């Protein structure tokens, strides 16, 4: 089966800012794919290009087998987009929103009414169908937005794009949205979602790509990423600033894993598998004269560490890329 989404060398600049820099992605049909990255990494731009809303400057992208530039119409017929900003009308009821969108997608009045009932049922909004959307909870609103994206025959919607679907949602609403995504996937729909939350990617996605500066920094299944980048982390505290500089310099060229530096506390975190042999070897390699390291601590690293080390290598202390 051909991939649901395939991009090669996708690039896009806004003015002098290079948002996407030769991005290569491949998403297999029927899977959930998470594009993970901090704000400004290019996640939304990627979604907009794949959903035909923005034209790329370079490279190619195919969605559901069609080119996003030359076969825009065919792509639009095969996709659904739920963007970061709600596309439902607050003062209309849930049913009115769905009916309007269904009519706009080309359904007749009766077909639109039928589809509205189906979708309300499927997204557990039947009880709220005649309430104005402004009375909905955040999670209900997102679910309605998601449903509105599926007004075309859900059978022909083959790829669903969700741009930060749970940003700003409370934990319960987030859980409900996750269930909705799992259900979509169970129907055989390919789901492409962006998120800042590792936990979300970990729970939902078959594969994850970590995006930074418009490029893929890492790609794999959640388990692979954990194996490859997480494991354990050795935190080394330097004796003084000079020692700290020597440590970071050796970490940069010696170990192949430059680690997570924190100049404020003179601490450098380096990935390790946690075995005594490897920790000993790391200590010897980073501090051959046994003069620079004052203390060390071994942590079981989380996916946060993967995320931090991949996306905030320059300034990990500046913005806590918190994963909820």
């Amino acid at each position, binding site marked *: 089966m051909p991939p649901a989404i395939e991009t090669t060398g996708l690039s896009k600049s806004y003015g002098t800012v290079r948002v996407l820099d030769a991005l290569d992605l491949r998403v297999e049909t029927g899977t959930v794919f998470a594009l993970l990255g901090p704000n400004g990494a290019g996640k939304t731009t990627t979604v907009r290009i794949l*959903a035909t809303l923005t034209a790329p400057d370079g490279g190619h992208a195919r969605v559901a087998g069609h080119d996003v530039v030359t076969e825009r119409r065919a792509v639009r*017929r095969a996709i659904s*987009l739920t963007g970061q900003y709600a596309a439902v009308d607050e*003062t*209309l009821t849930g049913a009115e929103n769905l009916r*309007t969108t269904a009519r*706009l997608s080309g359904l007749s009045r009766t077909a639109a009414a039928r589809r509205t009932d189906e979708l309300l049922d499927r997204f557990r909004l039947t009880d709220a169908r005649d309430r*104005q959307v402004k009375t909905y909870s955040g999670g209900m609103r997102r679910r309605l937005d998601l449903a509105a994206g599926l007004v075309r025959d859900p059978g022909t919607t083959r790829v669903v794009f969700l741009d930060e679907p749970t940003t700003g949602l409370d934990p319960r609403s987030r859980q409900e949205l996750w269930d909705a995504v799992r259900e979509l996937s169970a129907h055989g729909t390919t789901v492409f979602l962006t998120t800042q939350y590792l936990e979300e990617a970990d729970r939902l996605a078959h594969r994850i790509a970590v995006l930074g500066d418009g490029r893929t920094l890492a790609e794999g299944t959640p388990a692979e990423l954990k194996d490859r980048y997480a494991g354990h982390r050795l935190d080394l505290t330097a004796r003084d600033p000079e020692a700290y500089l020597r440590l970071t310099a050796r970490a940069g060229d010696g170990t192949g894993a430059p680690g997570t530096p924190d100049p404020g506390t003179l601490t450098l975190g380096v990935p390790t598998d946690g075995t005594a042999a490897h920790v000993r070897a790391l200590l010897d390699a980073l501090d051959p004269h046994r003069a620079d390291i004052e203390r060390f601590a071994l942590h079981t690293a989380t996916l946060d560490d993967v995320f931090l080390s991949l996306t905030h290598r320059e300034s990990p202390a500046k913005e806590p890329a918190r994963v909820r």
Partner: protein
Amino acid sequence: MSADALTTTAVLAGRGLRLSRRNLDAVITSLMLPVLLMLVFVYFFGGAIDTGDTRYVTYVVPGVLVLCAGFGAAGTAVSVSDDMRRGTVDRFRTLDIGGVPILAGHVAATVVRNALATALVLGVAFLIGFRPAATPGGWLAAIGLLLVYITTVSWLSAAAGLLARTPEAAGAVTFFMMFLPYPSSAFVPIDTMPDWLHGFAEHQPVTPLIESMRGLLLDRPVGDAPWIALAWCAALLAVAVAASGALFRFRTK
């Protein structure tokens, strides 16, 4: 426009009307303001304005209707701008709906809303002594001209809504449309204005429109005023459609 685009426009116009029905404050403002203004003009200022042997209320009604069109059009800018700011336009575009039906839907909703406001103004005008002498043909022509004008200012307003980054700014951009009837023959005869204003007042789009509507409603000869009004509207509409098309492409790049 293809049949599909027409259906789309009709559905979007229905959405626009439903949205404004739910926004009662805006509906009341847009219906009450023209009526109140008419009362202000007739009872506060009217006594001081000499309009010859035409009663002032009869003189001023076309002006109030045109003013009312300006208020209504301002709503178009706000709703277009609101759609652009939220994800609505993105959703529509993924449904393969182009800029023209999206804007046409908003304009059509405004025209329907305005027809209601026009009917209300006319009703109140009759109650306070508006006595036109129009033939049925004259009525049709006057209302037709008004609808053309409403469509024109709404589409200009839609372009303003695309230009403005926030609904608030969009409201401000449409201010000039509401202001345009004042330096015209809508409320006072132009020859009572200072000389330097005559040139503008006589040659701006609202004056021939007002003159034709007044002439048609009073069953007086209108000369070429309706054609000049139509030419103005056609030119402005062409500019508005072209500008909004370009702005839509720019905003959705």
